[in-house]
């Protein structure tokens, strides 16, 4: 039981100040822009909710949002089960455990633009290892700078490469917290591998999986640097995810008002979906 103690606020104050400084001031700036029109020379005109209406009706936004959702759903469907499966297959103790963990964590620690550049080099059709193998050894016609489908596959494989390890680490942490006695009891009862997974391992992994799904959702929905460096959003607009489109509007065309309105809509969607996940996945706890 936690005691009621308003001194808690004092303890939270430093965090509150630091985060509020970084969160509230920029957020208010964005809100401020989102209701105004600017012509670049520091003149602003009040336009009310016009940008919001325009964006919610614009086909460009719908298309980017559609691509973004397709991307996020695809990588969640691949990364979560794959991560759990790899964690289940890993050894539980011994020399190989730290070796596996260190090697698996490597992709997580590479700066995001290096990840993009690395996959770019890796997939170049004539001089990249993957591109060369596909084209000249396996005879598959592969060029992601021209073929939108190939670009999509590449962006998704890159994300799976980059982030599945996070799911593995978290699931593995959940798995090794299960006492040996649980497995012995299951063995005595003659439980199948599936029922061990379903009734012992999965419930124990629930909390860490909640974190994994939430983190992967938030980060993949906000993804920018890696696909931008890898494909630049192309060919055409085929891999222009929400953030990439947003930066194009904000910095490319310098349309601050519409860009700000777009970011607020974007933020609201992320917030709503995360809250939904959070509530659904922690529902049984309280």
């Amino acid at each position, binding site marked *: 039981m936690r005691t009621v103690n308003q001194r808690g606020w004092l303890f939270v104050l430093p965090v509150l100040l630091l985060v509020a400084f970084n*969160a509230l001031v920029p957020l208010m*700036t964005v809100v401020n822009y989102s209701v105004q029109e600017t012509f670049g020379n520091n003149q602003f005109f009040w336009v009310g909710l016009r940008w919001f209406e325009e964006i919610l009706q614009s086909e460009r936004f719908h298309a980017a949002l559609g691509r973004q959702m397709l991307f996020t759903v695809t990588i969640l469907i691949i990364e979560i089960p794959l991560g759990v499966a790899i964690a289940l297959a890993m050894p539980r103790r011994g020399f190989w455990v730290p070796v596996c963990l260190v090697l698996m964590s*490597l*992709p997580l*620690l590479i700066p*995001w633009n290096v990840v993009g550049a690395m996959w770019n080099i*890796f997939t170049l059709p004539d001089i990249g290892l993957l591109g060369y193998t596909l084209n000249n050894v396996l005879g598959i016609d592969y060029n992601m700078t021209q073929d939108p489908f190939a670009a999509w596959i590449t962006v998704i494989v890159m994300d799976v490469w980059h982030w599945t390890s996070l799911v593995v680490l978290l699931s593995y942490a959940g798995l090794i917290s299960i006492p040996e006695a649980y497995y012995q009891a299951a063995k005595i009862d003659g439980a199948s591998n599936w029922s061990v997974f379903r009734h012992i391992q999965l419930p124990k992994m629930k909390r860490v999986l909640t974190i994994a799904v939430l983190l992967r959702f938030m980060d993949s929905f906000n993804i920018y640097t890696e696909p931008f460096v890898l494909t630049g959003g192309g060919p055409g607009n085929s891999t222009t995810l929400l953030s990439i489109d947003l930066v194009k509007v904000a910095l490319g065309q310098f349309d601050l008002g519409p860009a700000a309105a777009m970011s607020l809509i974007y933020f609201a969607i992320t917030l709503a979906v995360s809250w939904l996940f959070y509530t659904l996945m922690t529902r049984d706890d309280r």
Partner: protein
Amino acid sequence: MKPRNLVPIIYILFLLLPIYWLMAMSFKTTNEILGGFSLFPQDFTLDNYRTIFTEPVWYWGYFNSIFYVSLNTVISLVAALPAAYAFSRYSFIGDKHLFFWLLTNRMAPAAVFALPFFQLYSSVGLFDTHLAVALAHCLFNIPLAVWILEGFMSSVPKELDETAYVDGYSFHRFFITVFIPSIKAGVGVAAFFCFMFSWVELLLAKTLTAVDAKPIAATMTRTASSAGYELGLLAAAGVLTIIPGAIVIYFVRNYIAKGFALGRV
């Protein structure tokens, strides 16, 4: 060897392939890279690395990155420790809302805030300093650190706090000499994640710096556009960005899995 061991092995091979290619590229000359496909460097060279270690633009990039990342890790942990303690031990007005609000800051797309961040840090005179990047990265690292530490602290029985008071410890002394050591695995895990997310982030770091605090990753993108396309040099710089992370993960390797399991996360 059991067949199921193949799963992690194949996965690790898949992870290492692009990294191998980056390394192979870093030991090749530009001519060899552009001249055609070769699985191993034919004309092995260390020139790419030599350039990085001798030109100040390059090696200062590494110092800058390491400096602001370490600063951010320290600030995040120092601020997050008491906050996590409050969330774990006390109930106060608005605590649940505050906790979720903290988490929402991880959801804000960094691309959205790039321009306002630039304006904010310019107006307080911190633009192009290490402190600016370290503070900006608190936006997503502090919530994560609070989240992780709160889990660990909640797994420490409350009797520990009570016994310490009975023994006459002041709160400060108890917190620093008894409580923090008892969750050092959690501090290790939180430090690892702060380091990791600050090290890999580029968009804000690049927006908030120009010359004096320019991170290595930004040096790489600017060189890519200005000096033609020196793939070998870029590959060498890329390989060197993996190393600090690899060192950190080596130190926390035993905590990383155990740590999360203990936490109430």
